[in-house]
């Protein structure tokens, strides 16, 4: 048989297959979208705090489990071998579009390694992303001693089943010869050469749950008594009701413990602990990754069901020892997450100053390549001569060529642009293609009006964009615009405003790049 024969034969397939409607597929994954939407809800509510060093959990009695009969199925319980097999990670591939498996208790493995083996990455934890739909590995995350994630996007090699990535200069190789096996390679790493077994069936938290289940048999259980009594044990017929309650719940937990999690209890009594983080939804310790499409769906879902601002949620009074998490925030500069809180005991780190190159040929240090951002060498430079008005507040006032890059081309990678201090009508753009922390969303603009900073802020939801922009405008901050694809806000701020932003209690965005004035 020749390829042409096959092509012709495909042209003769049953009409029924050609007649299928794509939208029906989207409908099939609606429940999944909803689940991920919850993660976005949490992120919107308090996503940044996740990466702040977590305060000690409140005494158990302060985080009351509303139903004492509820059993949270822990990872160790679900996977008997997990507790004593640090080389076991688990994965579930049946029902989710994208999946991240996670290895915990890594310190146990690591304790035999020399202390300074990996200066900043002692590998207390490691996560490996596995795309459930096609089984390919996609992302590797290691956590440093502060539990900060260092994410590396795994690049496939010529071999279908070998992946590479670099994190902090260390090269990781994962062989993925079959759906259940990963062979981990990292020179001098305690796990070098070890086989990691993906236990596919170990955790299937949502497998087999249909939309009907979500509407009729899923009961969201809250931990905080005052907030939970209204709906514990209640069968909710309207999913939006669940989410509205979820909102309260997230806020409560975030405030209580500096950590966010909730449980979902099914009709049969099975309970799952779910912890949303910035991009993932952890279910019983297994992390589900929200890809770009999911993020978009999350934003739409959020807009549909949670029209009230999360900041309006009333947070109940807590004990005196409760950390003031509402004043916590996090700054990410060029992908580096610099957590801090504005509590008096802690010092606010200085914004990171990023070098740049001028157009006069004067060589300045190259933009800093951060450890876990794998940048390729190819760089293209485009010169745009259109003007950007410093006071621009609308996207349409940004030169079209920049808009095209900023707002339409998600794959082009990090965007560096600036306006010459002495000539604000000249803009230089350099697009560097490369891999990014958490997919290809990272982009930034550097804008150099006199004594001002350009900041790029990653909003977690399109819904909050307007609120955030209004809030920023209320502080006298000039907003260049926002990017539709990921809700990134670009703004011009003075140093004073920058400090204000860093300390603001506004939730829902990350400052991820600050220009040099």
């Amino acid at each position, binding site marked *: *048989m020749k390829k042409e024969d096959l*092509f012709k*034969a495909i042209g003769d*397939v049953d009409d029924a297959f*050609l007649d299928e409607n794509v939208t029906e597929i989207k409908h099939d994954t609606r429940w999944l979208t909803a689940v991920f939407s919850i993660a976005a809800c949490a992120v919107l509510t308090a996503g940044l705090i996740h990466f702040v060093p977590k305060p000690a959990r409140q005494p158990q009695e302060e985080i009351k489990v509303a139903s004492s009969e509820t059993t949270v199925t822990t990872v160790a319980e679900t996977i008997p071998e997990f507790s004593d097999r640090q080389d076991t990670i688990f994965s579930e591939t049946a029902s989710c579009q994208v999946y991240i498996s996670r290895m915990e208790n890594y310190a146990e493995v690591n304790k035999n390694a020399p202390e300074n083996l990996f200066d900043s990455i002692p590998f207390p934890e490691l996560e490996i992303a596995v795309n459930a739909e096609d*089984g390919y590995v996609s992302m590797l995350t290691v956590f440093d001693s502060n539990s900060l994630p260092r994410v590396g996007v795994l690049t496939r090699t010529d071999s279908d089943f070998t992946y590479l990535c670099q994190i902090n200069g260390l090269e990781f190789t994962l062989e993925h010869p079959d759906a259940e096996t990963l062979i981990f390679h990292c020179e001098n790493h305690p796990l070098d050469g070890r086989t990691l077994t993906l236990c596919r069936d170990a955790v299937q938290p949502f497998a087999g749950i249909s939309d009907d289940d979500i509407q009729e048999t899923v009961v969201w259980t809250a931990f905080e008594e005052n907030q939970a009594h209204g709906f514990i044990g209640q069968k909710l017929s309207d999913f939006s009701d669940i989410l509205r309650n979820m909102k309260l719940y997230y806020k409560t937990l975030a405030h209580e413990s500096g950590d966010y999690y909730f449980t979902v209890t099914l009709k049969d009594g099975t309970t799952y602990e779910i912890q949303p983080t910035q991009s993932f939804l952890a279910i019983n310790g297994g992390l589900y990754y929200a890809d770009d499409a999911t993020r978009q769906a999350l934003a739409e879902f959020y807009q549909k069901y949670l029209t009230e601002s999360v900041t309006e949620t009333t947070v109940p009074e807590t004990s005196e020892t409760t950390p003031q998490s509402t004043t916590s925030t996090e700054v990410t500069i060029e992908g580096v997450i610099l957590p801090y809180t504005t509590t008096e005991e802690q010092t606010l780190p200085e914004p990171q100053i990023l070098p740049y190159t001028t157009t006069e040929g004067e060589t300045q240090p190259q933009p800093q390549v951060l450890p876990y951002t794998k940048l390729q060498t190819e760089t293209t430079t485009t010169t745009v001569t259109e003007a950007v008005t410093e006071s621009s507040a609308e996207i349409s006032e940004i030169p079209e060529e920049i808009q095209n890059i900023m707002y339409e081309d998600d794959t082009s990678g990090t965007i560096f642009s600036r306006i010459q201090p002495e000539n604000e009508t000249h803009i230089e753009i350099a697009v560097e293609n490369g891999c990014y922390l958490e*997919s290809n969303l990272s982009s930034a603009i550097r804008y150099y009006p006199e004594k001002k900073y350009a900041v790029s802020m990653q909003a977690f939801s399109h819904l909050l964009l307007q609120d955030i922009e209004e809030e920023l405008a209320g502080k006298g901050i000039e907003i260049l615009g926002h990017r539709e694809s990921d809700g990134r806000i670009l703004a011009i701020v003075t140093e004073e405003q920058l400090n204000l932003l860093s300390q603001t209690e506004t939730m829902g965005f990350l400052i991820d790049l600050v220009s040099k004035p």
Partner: protein
Amino acid sequence: MDDAQIIDLYFARSQNAVRETEKIYGAYCFSIADNILHNRQDVEECVSDTWLRAWNSIPPQKPSRLKLFLGKITRNLAFDRYRQKNADKRGNGECSAVLDELAECVASSDDVEKSFDAKILRQSLNRFLKSLPQRERQIFLKRYFYAESVKSIAGEFQITANHCTVILKRVRKKLQAYLEQEGFL
């Protein structure tokens, strides 16, 4: 005007049949041909041939889904035209890429001239497609029936192009294994 009314026009041998067909399905057929040929003149000729082929086929045929009926005619005509124009050289555009990808599925065939019954192959393909998850099936057909670009498909399904490529690769592997199992390779 709906399909039944248009088909009635064909049966009545009314010239309006072609006009109405073109009005409703012209863009659809054009896009199919364009995916394969990437040449406006060729595409227009191909679509015109489609109307002629439909005129000659109806009656006696009475397609239940006129759109798909026309789409298949267009695809076949476009592919024939593509092959004529690319007999001695590799062409550009999606069709070349699509064929190259499909070549992976038949790569294990020791004898490319191995005889097979096209009808049985079609039936096998239908069974194979039925066995696929719906989304994989649709992505597969978008690529290998309509010859749409990976980027376009990815956009439609709200996935990344890379993800789409990976899905297609997996399906091709499945198809190869299936064809071997069915004795076509």
